[in-house]
């Protein structure tokens, strides 16, 4: 009873997202008018080789046909892990070419790099490091539009960027509401060429965002609405998107789901699954979506034992994974177990369809790395948003179960 009361509405919450969302067929065609509204005429486009080679840049460039916009420069050499070296190089090009706005076309790495460039340009600095951490930014950012080419990170609507400093071998996190893009443009043609395994991994990333956003202690009614819509869309479309990537409707649904999950977790934050996935990525270079897919059921199982309130919320999610009449038949006490089983079923199906790893060992993690992954995870910001205090031993238990 108490849990339902708490679940109804928190005593206090805050919610913020200022990104204008343009989603649908031919959405790219709106970029030039959006730039106009933002008072910009000469954008730099930041992308990577993969996006360029897949011909996706052509769609973006064509959308400027017959408009007054001049493309100031295109940078297509963004590394797989965004770095401050690339950020400084792009900022130099931006200044040299007298650009006045930024368009990011790509996945999480490209978007994070573009956020870094915006910080360097807007804060009029050459040292990105000075702005690492939370809420270090003070200036209004330059007009910034994002066109995601994956459907998972939700980076187009989140107020965080992770940028590596290879010289010091560290990854720096930048968090501020100021780095939110002005506009996110979701067009299904931009995600059509994603291979099945990346489609599956990024979709599981989005599912993890939505699930953790809903079960976390910072959840609120507004973020719940976004999380529920995201889970519903992912459940309906994740298998079709992996099986049949050419289906535009399915691609658009997944792009929307990723964005909705991004808005949700940007406000409610994530928990143990993400903390462990970040650390697994950092120590063993396992792609973030794959790490999340593997760890999600194990992280949820951990909560079943430790936090009754969270377990109750996990149970409530079952209604998104089975038909309403079947949901009504499942006793309340069994719903949480069935939710985790349903997520495992999705993972199993994706494994059969495209070889998505089911365990950390399948993803290339060796047993000797688990200790250091657990250690790094304890210092991850997501740990602050776990409903229970997590010890090194407990983090190890989850990792060993996922191994």
């Amino acid at each position, binding site marked *: 009873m108490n849990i339902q009361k708490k679940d109804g509405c928190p005593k206090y919450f*805050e919610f913020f997202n200022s990104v204008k969302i343009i989603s649908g067929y031919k959405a790219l065609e709106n970029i030039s008018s959006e730039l106009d509204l933002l008072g910009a005429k000469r954008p730099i486009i930041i992308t990577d080789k993969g996006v360029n080679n897949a011909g996706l840049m052509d769609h973006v460039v064509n959308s400027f046909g017959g408009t007054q916009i001049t493309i100031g420069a295109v940078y297509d050499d963004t590394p797989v892990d965004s770095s401050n070296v690339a950020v400084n190089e792009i900022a130099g090009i931006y200044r040299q070419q007298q650009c006045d706005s930024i368009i990011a076309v790509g996945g999480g790495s490209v978007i994070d790099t573009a956020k870094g460039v915006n910080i360097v340009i807007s804060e009029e600095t050459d040292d990105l490091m000075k702005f690492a951490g*939370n809420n270090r930014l003070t200036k209004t950012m330059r007009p910034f539009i994002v066109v995601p080419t994956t459907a998972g990170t939700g980076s187009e609507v989140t107020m965080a960027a992770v940028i590596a400093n290879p010289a010091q071998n560290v990854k720096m996190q930048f968090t501020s509401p100021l780095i939110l893009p002005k506009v996110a443009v979701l067009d299904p043609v931009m995600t059509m060429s994603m291979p099945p395994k990346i489609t599956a991994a990024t979709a599981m990333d989005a599912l993890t965002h939505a699930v953790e956003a809903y079960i976390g202690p910072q959840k609120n009614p507004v973020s719940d609405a976004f999380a529920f819509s995201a889970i519903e869309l992912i459940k309906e479309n994740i298998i079709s998107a992996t099986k049949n990537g050419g289906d535009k409707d399915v691609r658009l649904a997944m792009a929307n789901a990723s964005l909705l999950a991004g808005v949700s977790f940007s406000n409610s934050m994530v928990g143990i699954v993400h903390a462990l996935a970040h650390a697994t990525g950092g120590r063993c270079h396992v792609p973030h979506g794959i790490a999340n897919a593997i760890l999600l059921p194990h992280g949820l199982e951990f909560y079943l034992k430790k936090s009754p309130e969270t377990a109750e919320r996990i149970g409530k999610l079952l209604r998104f994974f089975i038909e309403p009449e079947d949901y009504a038949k499942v006793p309340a006490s069994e719903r949480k177990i069935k939710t985790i089983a349903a997520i495992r079923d999705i993972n199993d199906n994706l494994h059969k369809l495209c070889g998505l790893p089911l365990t950390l060992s399948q993803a290339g993690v060796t047993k000797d790395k688990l200790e250091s992954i657990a250690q790094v995870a304890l210092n991850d910001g997501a740990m602050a948003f776990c409903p229970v*205090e997590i010890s090194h031993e407990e983090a190890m238990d989850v990792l060993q179960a996922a191994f």
Partner: protein
Amino acid sequence: MSSRMYQIAPPKKWLKTQITRLCLYFLGMGIETAYKNVPDVKKEMDTLPDHFSFCFNVHNGPSMMILKNGNTVKYAGEKEAYHADLELVLKNIEYAYLMMTGRISTPDAVYHNRQFVRGNLGYMMTMIRVLNISQTLLFPNVLLRFYIKKVPPLTMKTMINRTKAYANATIGFFA
């Protein structure tokens, strides 16, 4: 036509500010004592850079600064937060007062966005663990559940350290 323009001064909230200031003082002295007497706190804080400053403050209100210099950790009173490496800011005195008097737990203050962090989140995670342990030196176990997520079992060592923390805060002894 009579003018409706007038000036009004908002209340100072003096009592809430002073209570918060006093709590921050005890917390600062608690961290100083914990660093010297609790191995887990020393281990955590030794992972921070040699020259490190942490400021816990209320926006436009009282604050406390902790300075780490090599192997010493000092409570430095209400120093200017401008240059702090890490800053934990409670958004207003009302939230601070509720938190300091145990009516909002520290985790709830985080979940409700009643605070924000300026600086490295990894360092903040370390300082959250340090704050949690330091609070165990300041409050009896029966009250601790209002402040932290997991209340550790009461041991003789904790009771001795509590005595030292209060002696340090009141007479500057046992630090």
